[in-house]
């Protein structure tokens, strides 16, 4: 983190100038950030909110998801996706993932019921759910798609970017994301005029103007201070994703040679942006210990699939209900992949893995 902002004197000057304006809430730099963000991801509108989780929640709310409705999503996502559904009083309906860590779209149709009010595909780890297959289902059943693109900014399929396929796309700007700010933060993108208006109301207490409350909304605004940070960082977003793709290609090439490691599929029509670089590993837990002991920040995203978390006990899912998610939870391992890594550092990771399996 500190590395990312090691050379930021110009940003520092911008922040000092901004703070003196006192324009802290829904200020001008936020509007600039929203325009730049929309342009970056190829969307018509972008709306800054307080977190990626809120981006999902507000999107679901805006398309009418409420108490008792069902939302179809994937069994292996981060807890926030499901938390957003639960907060609206709706019920998460899981489908299993495939080896790209995203929803297996072939399983979606069987999960549709009369109560299904939204599809919430998660573009997990930098991959994308196969939207080419999900869109026809959305049209067939008239069920809107909200894309959880929190981990896949600038990911694409056939050149069409994450977040622009569905009714709305939700992004996170959390400090650990590919494009980040200095706090929690999130963005919703949409091409719909109506949803754009609704999101702007929902994030600011439903206030149409200072004194009129159109609908009961939330307090979920992206701090304008953080938009200044975002404006500084956005011009390098593409470069950051390219560096990560390059890093992943290096790992793929080297790790492929090691018995014990399996590289997930890398379909050529997908632009995978590697928010996380994950492979499947034999004797995963031992490998993790081995690497951690060497000071390598290897991690597991995530060791317990969401459907088996204590918070979801009431849904009554049993272990084994989603076999691919279960299998992956035991074999996945994430290696550091960020844009600041040197070839030497990645070489050290590869050498250590090789040594472990030797």
């Amino acid at each position: 983190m500190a590395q990312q902002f090691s050379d930021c004197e110009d940003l520092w000057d911008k922040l000092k100038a901004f703070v003196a304006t006192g324009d802290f809430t829904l200020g001008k730099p936020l509007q600039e950030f929203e325009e730049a963000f929309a342009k970056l991801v190829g969307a018509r509108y972008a709306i800054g909110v307080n977190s990626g989780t809120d981006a999902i929640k507000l999107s679901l709310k805006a398309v009418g998801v409420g108490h008792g409705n069902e939302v179809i999503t994937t069994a292996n996502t981060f807890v926030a996706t499901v938390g957003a559904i639960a907060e609206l009083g709706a019920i998460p309906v899981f489908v299993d993932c495939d080896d790209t860590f995203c929803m297996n779209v072939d399983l979606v149709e069987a999960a549709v019921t009369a109560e299904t009010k939204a599809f919430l595909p998660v573009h997990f780890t930098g991959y994308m759910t196969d939207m080419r297959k999900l869109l026809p289902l959305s049209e067939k059943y008239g069920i809107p798609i909200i894309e959880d693109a929190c981990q896949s900014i600038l990911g694409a399929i056939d050149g069409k970017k994450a977040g622009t396929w569905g009714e709305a796309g939700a992004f996170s700007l959390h400090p650990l994301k590919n494009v980040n700010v200095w706090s929690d933060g999130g963005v919703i993108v949409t091409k719909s005029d109506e949803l754009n208006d609704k999101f702007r109301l929902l994030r600011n207490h439903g206030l149409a103007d200072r004194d009129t409350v159109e609908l009961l909304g939330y307090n979920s605004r992206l701090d304008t201070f953080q938009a200044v940070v975002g404006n500084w960082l956005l011009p390098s977003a593409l470069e950051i994703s390219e560096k990560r793709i390059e890093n992943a290609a290096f790992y793929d090439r080297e790790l492929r040679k090691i018995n014990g490691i399996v590289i997930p599929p890398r379909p050529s029509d997908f632009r995978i942006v590697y928010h996380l670089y994950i492979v499947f590993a034999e004797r995963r837990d031992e490998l993790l210990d081995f690497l951690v002991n060497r000071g390598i920040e290897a991690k597991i995203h995530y060791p317990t699939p969401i459907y088996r978390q204590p918070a979801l006990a009431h849904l009554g899912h049993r272990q084994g209900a989603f076999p691919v998610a279960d299998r992956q939870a035991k074999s996945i391992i994430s290696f550091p992949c960020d844009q600041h890594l040197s070839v030497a550092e990645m070489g050290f990771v590869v050498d250590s893995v090789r040594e472990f399996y030797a």
Partner: protein
Amino acid sequence: MTTNSTGFPIPYVNLSAQWSQERDQLLPIIEEVLLSGQYVGGKYVEEFESAAAAYCGVKHVVALNSGTDALVCGLVAMGVGRGDEVITPPNSFIASTGAIVHIGAVPVFVDVCADQNIDPLLIERTITKKTKAIMPVHLTGRMASMEAISEIASGHGISVIEDAAQAIGSEFASKKSGSWGLVGCFSTHPLKNLNAIGDGGFLTTNDDDIAQRIRLMRSHGLADRDKAESFGFVSRMDSLQAAILGFRLKQLPEVTAKRRANANLYRALLSSETVFIPPDLEKELNTYHTFVIQVDRRDELKSHLAQLGISTSIHYPIPIHLQPAAKSLGHEIGDFPVTEEQASRILTLPVNQFTTDAQIDAISSAINAFLK
């Protein structure tokens, strides 16, 4: 353009002046946080939480993303849920009622007194079997009648959640806001007396269990990195904001003293024949988040002051029960007469710590002359 007696426009808020005053002390703090790489949670948040707990006289402070979130988390942690009733006044900022509605509960409005705070004498008749909580709002920085409210609540076995978003440091009977109810909810929005440079808020409680549950709730319900105990929200205070608030909390007694002095000057200068200012009780310490007067011909006066370069505000011109968003609650004009009458008479004057005696003198003379 005609002008007021200072010869210059008088702003309602003055965040730039605050920045100029604190710049040299705040810049090193901001730089330190940014270089630390710790942007969410961490030591700056923990330090602010302990300092705020000591200041408010409570066992726990949990820092969150906004005052609205403090209300939502507080209600959920107190066990208020779908279909439960929460008693609250209809003249607050929309967020107070919004929090109740968002968790599926029902706001039950009770009209206010001349001092704009919930009327304790009207509370009891609205209590039903479904009432789970009373949410008084310490509007303008003045404490609601907490002795009476606490007594009613404990008599009926219901809890109190204080909406203290506008009342940091306010006291009633020497006991601070946020330390009376089961939980207290504060905002640190840029326009508050204790303000960050972005959204922020926190919750106070003496209850270990509630504090613990809200600590989980604010970060996805995660007990540790991999285990979700229950579903939560994302409502964390930014480290940067916590560090700034830690600094400003130390200045708060001075800010409060200046706002109180400003209010006293207004009281001395404004004509009591044409301007109603709710008196401060001997037992209360009002921190004057806003200084609100009640007058005839309010709209005309507001335009007149604007022509003189004097910025004023109205908190709030449309009561919550008459907002489009509240249509489903089925209220009509006349349901809460005191609130409705005040909505047409209240006017908020600049009272922030950068308002000078000369400015207050100019504003008071302009008002007295217009209403004479």
